[in-house]
């Protein structure tokens, strides 16, 4: 079942299981894919004949579209399955979906799911390559990679960089993938947010912890500003949007106090006027659109590196049973 051809293993469920060299190889591979997206015909035949299912148990236009472009630019055949409106029990859907995909001999599955561990759950149960497009509050590895690529483009290297992730760390898969990826590439990492949204034991992952944005701005080279999910208000994690913007909103005025020019990242979609003010989002320091462009390149790189003949699925396609 294990495939030796891919330098990343069978699946990409997170950045935590990868080492620094593997992460660097993905970022390096993304470079030639950036060029393909600039061509008149934005298509290469890398994944010709491969079938990829984009399996989304949670609505996400941006990530799904980015993956779909990446797949189509590599000439893969893609099918989108949106399971968000499913009437059956969610847990049963996941295991039954896994069996159905296995029966259909899909080459790759890109999965977005609301439950932490869902991508790994699927990866352990099917011979197809599984790519995590976000599982609960666990990881969103391609987002982490595109953030790394954007930082590397701007600063030239990741090592020694001080990156602070701002906002709802508890519920954020983007935060975790960034933390794991940045640390493996030698960056210094901090998190900043209201203590209700900073998970217990976060320091033991090797990151700094700030509860006031002013301190983070003094410390950091770059801020990765997370989206504040509006349902956090109902959970009582923050009192109000207005309060959040006042205390944790990234504004031009706050950034003026920074000892150096800060690079501003945001995984999107942005709540303008909540976690980030418009003049910052649209300002010179913001690389949010670069992130989107890099997102396609990074996902092409991941698809490319994880592709390759799979002896196990080849056997299965011939009708062999385990």
């Amino acid at each position, binding site marked *: 079942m294990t495939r030796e051809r891919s330098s990343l293993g069978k699946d990409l469920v997170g950045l935590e299981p990868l080492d620094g060299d593997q992460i660097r190889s993905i970022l390096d591979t993304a470079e030639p894919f950036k060029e393909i997206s600039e061509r008149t015909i934005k298509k290469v035949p890398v994944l010709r004949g491969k079938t990829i299912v984009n399996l989304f148990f949670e609505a996400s236009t941006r990530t799904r579209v980015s993956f779909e472009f990446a797949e189509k630019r590599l000439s893969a055949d893609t099918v989108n399955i949106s399971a968000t409106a499913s009437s059956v029990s969610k847990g*049963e859907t996941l295991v039954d979906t896994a069996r159905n995909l296995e029966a259909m001999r899909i080459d790759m599955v890109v999965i977005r799911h609301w439950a*932490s561990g869902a991508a*790994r759950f699927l990866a352990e149960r099917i011979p197809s390559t599984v790519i995590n497009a976000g599982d609960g509050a*666990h990881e969103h590895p391609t987002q982490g990679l595109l953030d790394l690529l954007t930082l590397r483009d701007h600063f030239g290297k990741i090592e020694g960089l001080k990156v602070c992730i701002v906002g709802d760390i508890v519920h954020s898969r983007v935060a975790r993938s960034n933390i794991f990826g940045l640390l493996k590439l030698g960056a210094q990492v901090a998190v900043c947010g209201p203590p209700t949204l900073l998970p217990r034991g976060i320091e033991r*992952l090797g990151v700094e912890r700030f509860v006031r944005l002013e301190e983070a701005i003094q410390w950091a080279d770059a801020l990765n500003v997370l989206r504040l999910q509006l349902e956090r208000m109902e959970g009582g994690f923050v009192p109000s949007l207005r309060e959040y913007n006042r205390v944790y909103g990234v504004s031009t005025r706050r950034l003026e106090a920074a000892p150096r020019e800060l690079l501003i990242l945001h995984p999107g979609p942005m709540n303008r006027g909540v976690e980030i003010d418009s003049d910052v989002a649209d300002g010179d320091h913001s690389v949010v659109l670069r992130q989107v462009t890099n997102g396609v390149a990074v996902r092409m790189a991941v698809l490319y590196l994880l592709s390759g003949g799979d002896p196990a699925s080849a056997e299965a396609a011939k009708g062999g049973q385990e």
Partner: protein
Amino acid sequence: MTARWTEGPDSVAVAPRPLVIRGGRVLDPSRGLDAVLDVLLVGGSVAELGSGLTAPDGADVRDASGLIVTPGLIDVHVHLREPGAEHKETIESGARAAAAGGFTAVCAMPNTDPVIDDPAAVGFVLAAGRRAGAARVYPVGAISSGQNGQRLTPVGELVDAGAVAITDDGNPVMDSGLMRRALEYASAFGIPVSDHPEDLGLSRGGVMNEGVVSTRLGLRGKPNAAEDVHIVRDLLVAEETGGHIHIQHVSTRYGVDAIRRAKARGVRVTAEVTPHHLILTEEAVEGYRTEAKMNPPLRTQEDVDAVRAGLVDGTLDTLATDHAPHHYDEKERAFDDAPNGIVGLETSLGLVLTELVGRGVMDITTAIHRMSTGPAQAMGLPGGTLAVGSPADVTLIDPKRAWTVDPAAFLSKSANTPFGGWELTGGPAATIVGGRVVWEWGP
């Protein structure tokens, strides 16, 4: 490993022949007895202990040399799932699994469907347990009707029907006023009120221990404080009312400490701890292993050390498995979706002998006490002793038998355990209930 049933369930009504258990190391923690002796069981009771006992006419004789002869093991906290979830377990399969784990008696939790909250339901559990003809099944009634935390059940009637305690387990009693009334009212019948300690406000949304592992895995955590707050609440209400509170599955260091101090003050509190909270930490959840999902969650090594110390010094009176069978496809889910709990009846003794006694955490006398005398005293049950005249419930233990945990071979209908594949040394050799061998290990 195969189990052999020496007596069918229908033979229960027939009085067993006298039985001599010869030459075993008799270890009776209730009386500090540890000697190689013969034990004679007659008419469902312990008749005589001594060296070179003469077998009465027609008696069966069983050679127990190399084995340890102990009072029958008792598990005060099991979920047998019947009525309502017979695909997970039935009273019969659970009673047989108990016997196969060396247990001669279990206390069945009332969170079934329907809830065991009236005398007829208690009678049903009792009758089904008798029919099973394996380990004794003691029903535990609910505290509140439907376990909805509102109105007290008819506790007197439940006790008359055979309930040995009341609990809303599955749920904590969140209403302190209800807990007060339950403790006051139950004291009239001499039964304990057993509580699942969890402050639902503090644990809301949590699926594992809150700490570095939950942070890394992106799973919502339940802090120790959720359990600690509730334990302290229970202790204060018990102290106030003078009632007997039994704290279930203690998993936190502060919880152990609070119970220890309450006992010193004379509060009528007993408490239990599970094998998994004595052996595993939150690390077992790594990889989103749903077989390590339980409530309370597996905690940290500091907590494991504390509950071990609590069990050794008697702060925690008894080991209890919290045997919680689930059908395989219910655990075959994303971690957030999977139900809490693991089966424990058929691994408990082996784990205790290997991981606690074998590694020097406690001596075998203490271990056997916490699995027999301790639970009998905590719940006010017969047994837990080999004193002459006491029930002929005896467990024979082979301390040397090496075996591998094979969930597929469990007599329980469910196999949800994180201990599959563990290599253990020591386990039950035979289980004797009412003078009758209901289970014995056979190659």
